[in-house]
């Protein structure tokens, strides 16, 4: 056990270090509400009033509403699609016997090794041939399956006792029915984890929209934010306001599902 004095020191140090870590985010919040002229003139951690107008101006400046809709469509569709394809594949790997199972599982897992950035050229060529560049298809379809989700559900389904399905099979239920009526309701925590990971990753992604879209009306929020930054350069009050509303969806989701999110990371580490 630590002595009380040591504990106080520990607390003090922990709080100090945490403060240094969140300082950029606190400064961002403060500055997003500062007087734009003063914020452009110099740094300050102290507020000089509540200029909510910054948010309104930033929101209107470069068509963020449209970009929010684009990002939402992309992130929600990809997330739903990944959950669907991963549930099906995960169930097959966890519960069914079929020819080539081990090899196929290894092949699926091996796709995790190659980062998307390296494959962008051939994927871009495929999308050109499909005439999907600068459409929602390009932003959505290549991301609809991911080995991480398949692995997550395979491992999770294996922890569910088989007896729960057995009765349903005796009653003549099909694989499909058992998956949706029995396994899915038992897998809410794993589904939540995948939802959070995928949605946040898609919402935050810049690379895919940067390469696969070309016109203003197809821009997502992250791409929009880089354009906004180029235009507003040192207008830091407006810039920080834009950073805040682009960041809110992913941070909010993380706060709501924190437990599942952190557990997902921790288990990926321990395997």
């Amino acid at each position: 056990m630590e002595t009380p004095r040591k504990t106080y020191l520990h607390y003090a140090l922990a709080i100090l270090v945490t403060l240094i870590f969140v300082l950029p985010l606190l400064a961002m919040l403060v500055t997003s509400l500062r007087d734009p002229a003063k914020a452009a003139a110099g740094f300050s951690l102290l507020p000089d009033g509540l200029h909510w107008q910054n948010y309104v101006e930033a929101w209107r400046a470069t068509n963020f509403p449209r970009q929010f809709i684009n990002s939402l469509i992309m992130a929600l569709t990809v997330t739903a699609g990944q959950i669907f394809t991963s549930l099906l594949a995960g169930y097959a790997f966890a519960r069914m016997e079929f020819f080539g199972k081990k090899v196929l599982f290894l092949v699926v897992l091996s796709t995790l090794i190659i980062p998307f950035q390296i494959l962008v050229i051939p994927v871009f060529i495929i999308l050109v041939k499909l005439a999907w560049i600068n459409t929602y298809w390009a932003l959505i379809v290549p991301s609809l399956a991911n080995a991480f989700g398949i692995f997550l559900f395979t491992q999770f389904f294996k922890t569910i006792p088989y007896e729960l399905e057995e009765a349903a099979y005796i009653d003549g239920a099909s694989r499909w029915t058992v998956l949706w009526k029995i396994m899915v309701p038992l897998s809410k925590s794993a589904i939540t984890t995948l939802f959070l990971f995928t949605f946040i990753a898609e919402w935050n992604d810049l690379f895919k929209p940067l390469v696969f879209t070309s016109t203003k009306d197809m821009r997502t929020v992250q791409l929009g934010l880089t354009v906004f930054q180029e235009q507003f350069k040192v207008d830091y009050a407006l810039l920080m306001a834009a950073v805040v509303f682009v960041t809110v969806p992913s941070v909010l989701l993380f706060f709501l599902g924190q437990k599942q999110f952190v557990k997902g990371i921790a288990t990926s580490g321990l395997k």
Partner: protein
Amino acid sequence: MNSRKDNLMAYLFLLPACLLLGVFVLYPLLQLLWVSLNEWNILKDQMTFVGVKNYQAILAEDGFRQALLNTIYYVAVTVPLGMAVSLGLALLLNDKLRGVGFLRTAVFTPFVTSTVAAGVIFIWLMDYDRGLVNAALNWLGISRINFLQSDQWAMPAVILMTVWKQAGYNMILFLAGLQSIPEMYYEAAAIDGAKRGWQTFRYITWPLLWPTTFFVLVISIIFAFRSFEQMFVMTRGGPVGSTTTLVYYIFDKAFKFGNMGHAAAISTLMVLIVLLITWLQFRGQKEFEM
């Protein structure tokens, strides 16, 4: 259960995922290799087989060599620095401190902000005469640094942002690793007269944490190796190419200059490096599983 029916059902269940992974990962991998053996400028839309000419051209290019060195520099600094910071955070915010959950959440939050958002925040923090960092330097009596316009300081600035953003993620992994070390080792050490602190860290925590440390090392290298977005947002690969990493170089070659053959050749070389890292990972894992 009827095994023949199971076969068919299983393949139907696997079809959507495997079809997508096949079309958007495995087939592209083969096509990448093919494109890398062809001269192809996307603007002219014609492909000519040239064998290994692209590779020869790439390896002779100063730009490629610079991008490779930049990537090595970036990985070699970001990975150990990021690991040290996150291990420190994990030790500081461990379970022995009650009510620490709130602090952990705070430290983790940068990880869920987007790279673009974090990049814009750091552009501002590193601003020459309006940023926090230069205000602090000025206050300390050190002359201001024009971080993002300096070919010496741009990379450290990008690294600082990355370490800040990633630390929370690695901290979670280290915390899970620390939790898996049984308390009895520390109790036994205490009975033997070891003081909690450097001694127990050196002889108990560090060796028993090694599997976690190794895992964090591997994914940190993989994450750092594929970095692109922080450079795109903060520096556009500059000044004078000082933050152009390999992925950035591929992006420029392919989408700025349309030289798909060269870009594919660099990508293929990166695939080889990734495979090498993965092979080393498997070997390393075997070692501590024995």
